[in-house]
């Protein structure tokens, strides 16, 4: 279990898959992201763009004392400012995790796994 919240009525446990899905949906909302990539490129095929149900393959979630740490593996479109897109991903992911889970997020590490060259470029 990744995130455990204690309430007076009992515990709430949120699994890593849930976090991965939230992270994936938040990241792919960001302009400039064309897809999530697998963290395990060799096994899952080089630069395969993950489908929504496989977002967990592109997100690594760890718990530390200072909060949740997530690694996000993404593919960006060619021609965007990658550093800025990544910053946007970080702030959106952090915001969504904190609003939807109420759990503090310590770090959002973004791994750009590929650049997709869009037609006509």
């Amino acid at each position, binding site marked *: 279990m990744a995130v455990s919240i204690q309430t007076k009525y009992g515990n709430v446990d949120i699994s890593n898959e849930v976090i991965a899905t939230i992270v994936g949906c938040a990241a792919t909302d*960001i*302009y400039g992201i064309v*897809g999530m990539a697998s963290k395990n490129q060799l096994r899952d095929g080089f630069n395969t763009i993950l489908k929504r149900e496989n977002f967990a393959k592109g997100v690594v979630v760890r718990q530390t004392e200072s909060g949740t740490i997530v690694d996000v593996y993404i593919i960006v479109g060619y*021609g*965007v*400012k990658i550093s*800025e897109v990544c910053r946007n991903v970080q702030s959106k992911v952090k915001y969504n995790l904190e609003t939807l889970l109420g759990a503090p997020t310590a770090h959002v590490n973004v791994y750009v796994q590929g650049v997709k060259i869009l037609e006509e470029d």
Partner: protein
Amino acid sequence: MSVNVITNNEFKDMIRMGSHRLGQNAKFVNSLNVFPVPDGDTGTNMNLTFQSGYQSVNESTSTHVGELAQSLSKGLLMGARGNSGVITSQIFRGFGKNIESKETLTAQELAAALVAGVQTAYKAVMKPVEGTILTVARGASEAAANVAKSSDDITQVMLAAVNGARKALATTPDLLPVLKEVGVVDSGGQGLVFIYEGFFEALGGNLEASEYQPDETEMDEMLNAVHHQAVQNQFSNDDIQNGFCTEMMVTLGVNATSNDTFNYDDFRNYLDGIGDSLLVVADDEVVKVHVHTQHPQKVFTYGRRYGELAKIKIDNMRIQHETIVEDQPVKEQPQIDYGIIAVASGTGLEKLFQSLGVTTIISGGQTMNPSTKDIVTAIEQSNAKRVLILPNNGNIIMAAKQAGQVVDIPTAIIPSKSIAQGMTALLSFDMNADLEQNEANMTDALSTVKSGQITTAVRDTEIGNLKINKDDLIGLVDGDIVVSGQDLLQVSQEMVAKMVDEDSEIVTILIGADGSQEMAENISQNIVTAFPDLETEIHNGDQPIYPYLISVE
């Protein structure tokens, strides 16, 4: 005046005016920013992005519009900031690519370039979110393309683009629910409208006076409204942690108090550590900072390390919003030796507790239990060396214990389950004893008091041998229903009979918000008659739900 061809001069003018108009209204755009993350910086980001594009165009000596558009595209790419900034850079990247080889532009070519920009912009995203700047850009390009079919007048085409953009902007709240909720249009889309309006003006177009333009005061009002909203939201799920909206502008290198070189990331990270809602904008000469923090002085001291403070501003957001949100005003108290926090509601009870030495009252009780967070806040704000907590309700003890574990201040929880227990415990408090000793003594004292409560039954029920009808009076002793009936005097007397033993001395009656002094005196009289050895005391507790709280000790 009609323009049939855009040369390098018109093009440069368009970019300059677009940048100017966006810059003027950046604050307003910030105020609309709720998507994708409500951090109020879309206007700032777009403005910085577009200025970078403008600078690049301005520095170019080319007289070829296609080449100028390349400079614009490059400048925007390099300067892109924030989500809207990135999208803007893509729109003009597609725009530039489309007119790469054109030395000048006709109305048709301009419209085609606008369309191409939108196509490029839509491609670079996995799932385009409608109701954003993308929607607005598309609305503008479609309208422009439409007019270009029948007109060679570039001013007319640009006017169509502006109107198309505005129309699309107006639909954004219907497309994106989060906008509708807050009652704003998309901030990035609004930013693009300003850019296009600037283009139109540069072409000699006059924006009609009747059309809506927010002026400075209005903008401030909207800014405040959005600010309020953000802060209010914080109040509802979380108390404001960082109460001071702090802004400063540092002129880098001027009279700096340290020799450290300015590093944007370090600077930002430091401020991030002491506040939230952080916005740091820097160029080579100045840094602008907006942050909500509990420690404005730290922000300024840190800023001084890198240069002179050109502008500073602090707003106390708690005071600002006190009128909107009912909340206990938070003030710094002088450091005290012992903080005693009690949970109670009703002005009478609050006064009684205060007269017994309680330093902080957390409003709450039977129907509204304070959260762990409320208690943590109270502990932290007590500014005491050590803290004792009287939950005064069985349901709050857990929350208090949790709170005690989180805070740095040594804290002891006295597990008082009723107001009467809380009061009795306070009588055993010794200012000079240490925390453990007080905890032990006060906890011991809890068992010496029996707490009775009189209230009205809300439904028919049967407990043990007691048959209770709705609206009957019921008497509870330490949480268990022991008597019921219709006559208050009789119920109270029977209840007290279950509470007294040979050690009992005093009966205390607390009159609730629904009780009366007269009736309390009658009850008192009645008890004394039945138990001549007992003394009675009557206090005005003003507590909700229980018209009379009667304790025996």
